[in-house]
């Protein structure tokens, strides 16, 4: 049985997701560090590095979910549970990624920086980009729910 062809939009999105993932890795780790990843002073050993990956990981997950939605749309799937789940994954990825970038990462980096000696307060990093992404994620999730309701209504017509 021939494997179904991926739509161009899905291919482009997946390439972008992979390229961004690799770019992130190289940017954070540094090309020179790649040769001794597990060395005693390798950047991959530092907790800051792993904390800084939380938000991008969610954003990349959202990108991957977007490519899956493109595949389902190309297959001609109706606005059913699969597409709704995909849209919710995109929305969820954007919201969680933004939350991680705005609150989780600054707070964790602060805590790690002082060796967990000062446990008070929450640190924020209020970027316009991250807040916008969070709102877009919320809108996408809401639209998915709205779409599901409309599809259910449409399906109740024979």
């Amino acid at each position: 049985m021939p494997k179904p062809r991926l739509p161009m939009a899905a291919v482009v999105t997946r390439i972008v997701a992979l390229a961004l993932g690799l770019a992130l890795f190289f940017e954070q780790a540094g090309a020179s560090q790649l040769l001794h990843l597990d060395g005693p002073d390798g950047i991959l050993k530092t907790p800051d590095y792993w904390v800084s990956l939380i938000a991008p990981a969610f954003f990349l997950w959202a990108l991957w979910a977007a490519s899956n939605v493109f595949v389902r749309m190309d297959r001609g799937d109706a606005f059913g549970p699969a597409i709704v789940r995909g849209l919710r994954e995109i929305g969820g990825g954007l919201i969680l990624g933004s939350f991680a970038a705005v609150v989780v990462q600054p707070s964790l980096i602060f805590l790690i920086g002082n060796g967990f000696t000062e446990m008070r307060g929450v640190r924020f990093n209020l970027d316009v980009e991250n807040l916008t992404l969070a709102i877009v994620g919320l809108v996408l999730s809401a639209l998915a729910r709205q779409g599901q309701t409309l599809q259910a209504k449409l399906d109740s017509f024979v």
Partner: protein
Amino acid sequence: MPVRVTLDVMLARRKLRARDVADQIGISETQLSLLRTGKVRGMRFGTLSKLCLILECAPGDLLEYDRDDADLKTSED
């Protein structure tokens, strides 16, 4: 809802089986059954015209309306 589908009556008059009609108009037997029992929100014009063609009737032969003054107050959602 005061609009009733009287498909059963027309099927009996034409001596047709629901399964055959469902096959001819391209919907599932389950959907036709839901339609016959009035458990659907509505009927597409496309389905209605196919039914009329096969049963050789007019839309009014398949639908009946029981007058209810409260209909003006119900919202369409």
